[in-house]
């Protein structure tokens, strides 16, 4: 076996025939290439879909994971599996699978366009999905912004690469160093919820450090300092740090605390903004007060005229 890149190239208009299920897929264009796989946008019996070629081992393993995902109720993290087959092509027999086509920018691109206030919200979504997955006995493993797509609106976080998904209790096989707690010497590579939660915290870090950075000798201290340095992460920093330290035993526990810190963020904005906000508020308050005064004045005037009128009528009647 060779671990080198899968090189072949298929042009638009090529028809891919499945050997076992005899479905046909018309190639529209290349969607992307990863370390091992090549993914095409195709037109199949049910419309647009994403078709992935890779080596036989990866294809089979990923297909198994997608099948398992289908059984997890309420998890929308991965794409749904539509077909799996072999194509007898000029390149030899090529195993492939077909999945739901997920459209949208990657998480990093989305944050670049829409701003960092989305980090917390999308992290909540990620944690919710992870909770469902963990309850079903799976650990996602290779979580990173390049693998996460924001589809919609309504915006939903989806994952396009499920290759790292591992049964709980086994060893994580696929990971990306920056998101791997083993690399940061912050724990083992055992597939357990805290492994995913560490990676989820690293996703938030990567979003504000798009260039990433490599480890020094300080281990997790380095990460904590990096979190504290960014004002975009200020509100959620304590939650991220706890996740980095492996202190959450479940995604829902982390989600609950994240929610609390996001809700209180609006109350304690960072200093510079706060001053202008206060000034704005003051302005509005003074204006409001003036309006109120004017209202009172009108009311008093009306009452005074009414009283005068009543007195006038009474005096007229009495005289």
């Amino acid at each position, binding site marked *: *076996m*060779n*671990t080198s890149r899968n090189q072949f190239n298929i042009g638009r208009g090529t028809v891919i025939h499945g050997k*076992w299920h005899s479905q046909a897929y018309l190639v529209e264009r290349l969607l992307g290439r990863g370390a091992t796989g090549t993914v095409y946008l195709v037109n199949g019996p049910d419309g647009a879909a994403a078709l992935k070629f890779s080596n*036989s*081992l990866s294809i*089979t*393993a990923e*297909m*198994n994971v997608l*099948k398992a995902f289908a059984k997890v109720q309420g998890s929308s993290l991965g794409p749904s599996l539509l077909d*799996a*087959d*072999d194509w007898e092509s000029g390149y030899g*027999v090529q*195993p492939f*699978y077909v999945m739901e086509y997920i459209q949208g920018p990657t998480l990093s691109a989305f944050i670049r366009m829409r701003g960092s206030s989305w980090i917390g919200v999308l992290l909540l979504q990620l944690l919710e999905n992870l909770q469902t997955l963990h309850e079903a006995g799976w650990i996602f493993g290779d979580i990173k912004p390049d693998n996460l797509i924001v589809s919609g609106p309504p915006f939903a976080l989806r994952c396009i690469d499920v290759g790292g998904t591992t049964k709980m*209790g*086994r*060893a*994580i*096989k696929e990971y990306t*160093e920056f998101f791997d707690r*083993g*690399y940061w010497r912050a724990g*083992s*590579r*055992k*597939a357990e919820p805290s492994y995913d939660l560490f990676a989820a915290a690293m996703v938030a870090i990567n979003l504000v450090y798009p260039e990433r950075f490599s480890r020094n000798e300080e281990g997790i201290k380095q990460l904590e300092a990096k979190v504290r340095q960014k004002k975009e992460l200020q509100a959620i920093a304590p939650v991220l740090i706890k996740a980095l330290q492996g202190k959450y035993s479940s995604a829902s526990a982390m989600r609950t605390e994240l929610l609390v810190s996001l809700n209180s963020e609006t109350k304690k904005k960072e200093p510079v903004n706060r001053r202008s906000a206060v000034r704005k508020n003051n302005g509005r308050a003074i204006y409001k007060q003036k309006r109120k005064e004017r209202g009172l004045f009108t009311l008093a005037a009306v009452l005074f005229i009414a009283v005068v009128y009543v007195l006038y009528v009474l005096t007229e009647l009495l005289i």
Partner: protein
Amino acid sequence: MKQGTIKQILLLTDGCSNHGEDPVAMAALAREQGITVNVIGMIDDQATDERGLQEIDQIALSGGGISQTVFAKQLSHTVQMVTRQAMTQTLQGVVNEQLKKILNKDTGMESLPPDTRGEVMEVVDELGETANLEVLILVDTSASMKSKLPTVKEALLDLSLSMNARMGSNLFSLSIFPGKRKDTEQLLDWTPKLDSLTSLFSKLSPGGLTPTGPAIREAISQFKKKRSRKGWLSGGDEYIEKSV
């Protein structure tokens, strides 16, 4: 199938052998005895030696293993990946053999429909998780490797981290070539963890010839020695650290 042990030699080198037996032949010898030989070729940014690359591929090919050339920076990730993929490949070979017997055909997993293939893969996965693994690491310490040794150390610690997250047991052993007086020198006898490696590596003084072939032959005999000593090595948790 009984609980199996997977035996691998992991060779880390940056170039051509220039002393002793042909390493490709020695890799074939290892394979005959159920030991897979994987090779990691550590390359520099400078133009690489074509002959060296060829040798790397050929050793792995005849040793039934995987070869991969990398820049030093990606070493950690590659070492654990190659080890793991080679394990899967070995297990898949075993499972394929069984399948051939059952199906009574000269065909392997590829001839199965995708769904069945998935079920077989699940079995391979399960085996990979629970199998016992023995890896003999052979590090080239000829002069040109000097600057790469710190990365090698990191990569090996990382390998131990990855493998020890599995349910199955692990044993590692570390030898360098050339040794001080011999072609090969054992630095670390069979041990489940590689943590003690850090202090050993700082004491190394790279230099000398590159006797890759003799190193592989010596490595094969280390697997044998291990068997014969099993009797008194209680539990396998204890390890003996040889002086450098």
